[in-house]
């Protein structure tokens, strides 16, 4: 049988992918089943059955969505557990376990109508009681959830009917639906955590409402999910099972991919992508992402406490050159917001200060700040983040042009997290991602303490005020304007320099149909995937 070579690598315009998404969603909306906008485009005539083998480079430490913030955990648990909303790729929160909701005039009371006929993996029906229990659990800091911070805005959650839940907030928050998405927490049966072993029991038995349920989870080996027969969306999912194989290095990942032991994998390093380019039967696709590779500038120590030095650094950086060196061009240079949010929330680069490279101005600023004779700065990078090494060397050269002698210090992730959390990050590379909402992206990181975490000791009044307003505003145009102003402050005073978002690069076997990669990197698309065998 002749197989055609489909390698759609090249510079694929991001616009076309997003348009494809929207078009599919609209086509689905015409026939208007409620789930048409969820998880990815709904296929016309999917073939049922089969097992999809997915390769994962990073293994989820555990499957508990309430107590694990690890991205590898979220990637897989979105298929098992569900919140009230789905974080659509276009940046809107679409009802998932909620069916509809109303907001009171003052923006403080949300009344949710829940979807009917939803069953948990243990066979019980989902009710409003379960929803109230789940969200009350996560927002109580005593329960030790990393999501507790995001959910602190909620004052109370109550079940007022079998399928009606009322939430009250301490102040209006336009990002509430997105917060009730799938990053932290999920709807689980009421009283679940009463058992003291309940947290780790989630590694052997799932209690969610998602399209797949847990079959087995073997340390350092694999995670197998099986189709949940009682899933509320008729006909979905299409696969019988999904098997995630944990391969800790990309060499064995590429070998397994070539030999058909793996059907689909997300690759991050450009040199890995180059290895599978042009191989018969493998398709390579790029999807925009919500991640950002940044240089963070903690203001706690000199010389970074001087805004002129930070501005000079911003002017000296050539983001395109760093991006090419770091990820071989498989991404997009950004300004003050991640690539996936650019269309909906971005500000044109021409309207932002300190974006275009200007060495003369940068040198003048260094001179003003009293560093005309040069200054030493130490850049922290993290072991295991491949892009950081070439990026660090490139940055060292660029900053050398304005008299900064950059020392590069590599640390382990644990050390780095410690520094970060104690707000002693100094000058460092960072690699983080967000849900598709500006409040969830910016507030915690950049609002001054104690409301925000302000890891970079930025302590900016104007920015904090804008973030507070953006959070309570629900009108899109108003919000967009507020966040545009915020981004201008960010660009002006430089607590962080967002360099680029790397694309999600998906390599899949030809037989894998209708797989799309959500911009978060989470595996929502598998719920819409089918195998042509």
């Amino acid at each position, binding site marked *: 049988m002749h197989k055609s070579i489909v390698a759609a690598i090249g510079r694929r315009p991001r616009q076309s992918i997003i348009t494809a998404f929207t078009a599919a969603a609209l086509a689905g909306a015409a026939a208007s089943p409620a789930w048409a906008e969820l998880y990815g485009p709904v296929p016309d005539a999917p073939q049922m059955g089969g097992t999809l083998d997915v390769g994962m480079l990073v293994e989820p430490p555990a499957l508990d969505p309430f107590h694990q913030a690890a991205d590898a955990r979220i990637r897989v648990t979105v298929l098992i557990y569900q919140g009230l909303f789905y974080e659509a790729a276009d940046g809107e929160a679409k009802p998932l376990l909620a069916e509809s909701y109303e907001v009171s005039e003052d923006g403080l009371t949300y009344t949710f109508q829940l979807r009917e006929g939803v069953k948990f993996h243990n066979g019980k029906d989902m009710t409003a009681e379960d929803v109230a229990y789940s969200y009350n659990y996560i927002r109580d800091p005593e329960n030790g959830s990393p999501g507790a911070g995001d959910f602190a805005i909620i004052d109370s959650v109550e079940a007022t009917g079998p399928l009606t839940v009322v939430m009250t907030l301490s102040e209006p928050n336009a990002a509430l639906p997105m917060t009730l998405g799938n990053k932290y927490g999920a709807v689980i049966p009421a009283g679940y955590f009463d058992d003291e072993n309940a947290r*780790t029991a989630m590694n052997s038995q799932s209690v969610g409402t998602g399209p797949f349920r847990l079959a087995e989870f073997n*340390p350092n080996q694999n995670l197998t999910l099986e189709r949940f027969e009682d899933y509320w969306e008729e006909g979905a999912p299409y696969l019988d099972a999904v098997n995630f194989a944990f391969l800790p290095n990309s060499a064995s990942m590429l070998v397994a991919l070539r030999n058909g032991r793996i059907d689909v994998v997300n690759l991050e390093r450009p040199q890995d992508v180059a290895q599978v380019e042009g191989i018969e039967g493998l398709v390579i696709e790029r999807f925009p992402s919500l991640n950002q590779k940044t240089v963070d500038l903690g203001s706690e120590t000199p010389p970074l406490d001087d805004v002129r030095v930070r501005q000079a650094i911003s002017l000296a950086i050539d983001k395109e050159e760093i991006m090419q060196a770091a990820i071989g061009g498989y991404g997009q240079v950004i300004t003050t917001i991640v690539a996936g949010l650019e269309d909906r929330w971005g500000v044109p680069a021409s309207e932002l200060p300190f974006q275009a490279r200007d060495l003369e101005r940068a040198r003048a600023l260094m001179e003003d700040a009293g560093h005309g004779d040069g200054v030493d700065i130490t850049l922290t990078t993290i072991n295991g983040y491949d892009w950081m090494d070439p990026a660090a060397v490139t940055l060292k050269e660029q900053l050398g042009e304005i008299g900064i002698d950059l020392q590069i210090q590599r640390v*382990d992730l*644990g050390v780095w997290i410690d520094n970060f959390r104690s707000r002693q990050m100094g000058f460092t590379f960072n690699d*983080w991602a967000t849900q598709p909402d500006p409040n969830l992206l910016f507030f915690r990181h950049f609002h001054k303490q104690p409301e925000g975490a302000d890891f970079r000791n930025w302590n900016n009044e104007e920015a904090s005020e804008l973030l507070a307003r953006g959070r309570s505003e629900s009108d899109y145009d108003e919000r967009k304007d507020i966040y545009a102003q915020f981004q201008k402050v960010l660009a002006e005073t430089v607590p962080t320099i967002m360099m680029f978002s790397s694309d999600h690069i998906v390599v899949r076997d030809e037989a894998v149909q209708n797989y799309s990669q959500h911009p978060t990197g989470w595996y929502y698309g598998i719920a819409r995937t089918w195998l042509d065998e």
Partner: protein
Amino acid sequence: MGIYLLKRLGASIVTALLATFLIFALVRMVPGDVVAQMMGQAGGPEAEAALRAFFGLDAPIHVQYVTWLGDALRGDLGVSWTRGIPVTDMVVSSFLVTLQLGLVTLAVATVIGVPLGILAGIYEGRPIDTLIQGFNVIGLSAPVFWVGLMLLVAVSSALSWSPPLRFVPPTQSLADNAAILVLPVSSLALLQVAAYSQFVRQNVVSALQQQYVRTAVAKGLPTRIVFFKHILRNVTIPIVTFMGLILIQILGGVVIIESLFALPGLGRLLLTAIETRDYPVVQGALLLVVLVAMIVNLVIDIAYHAIDPRMRVS
């Protein structure tokens, strides 16, 4: 012999205790604990404190140690903080994988390495010796991870085949088990075959120069008897020592190979447990490593006594 054994055992127990304390303290000195790992860039101080208390990390370190040691002496190594599986189960099941890998490698290395070494030793200076020594130099200088990687890539492109991703114990399917182990064992064995044959060669060469061998040859004993009764017997003792050392070396070196070939062995378990700061698993796994190393050394000492009559007197 009895007193000697008791002394050895006593010393071993003290060493083990010391090792557990060191492990306990060291793993806690690594920055960022399990709570920081679980929280990532999210979370707040209250939630962190609650989690820390949940894992008992709020107690002073000596209290934590005494609690752990007390449980460990009763055979309870606790439960993995991330997986919830009893540490004993995790450690034992992954150790079986590593042990199989180690023993098969040892067997392969012995079966190939010892005859090569004897051959090279007997034909010292001849072309066959040069050939074997050449191989030894390559085997000893090629890093294990590089050999593994090259094997994996070479086999994949030549045969369009790569090992199954899911480990299968030999009790379940010998064929699948062999398919999984063939590449990792080959990568590990290359170094050990070279080390073995180099070592055996030296011993044979020096045995050949001993006067008792010359005497035996001079008095007209058949070569076969000289070889088996005089040379081999004397070469066996260092080989047994060496076997133990090699087994420990293999067990120490499997971390890389287990990660490369995605085998669920002890090395990889330890690595992921350290990454997630899963202290009970780190402590349990390292305790096992310490115990195994001690037992192997003890067995070697006892084996000496059995093989070499001179040792029995002292």
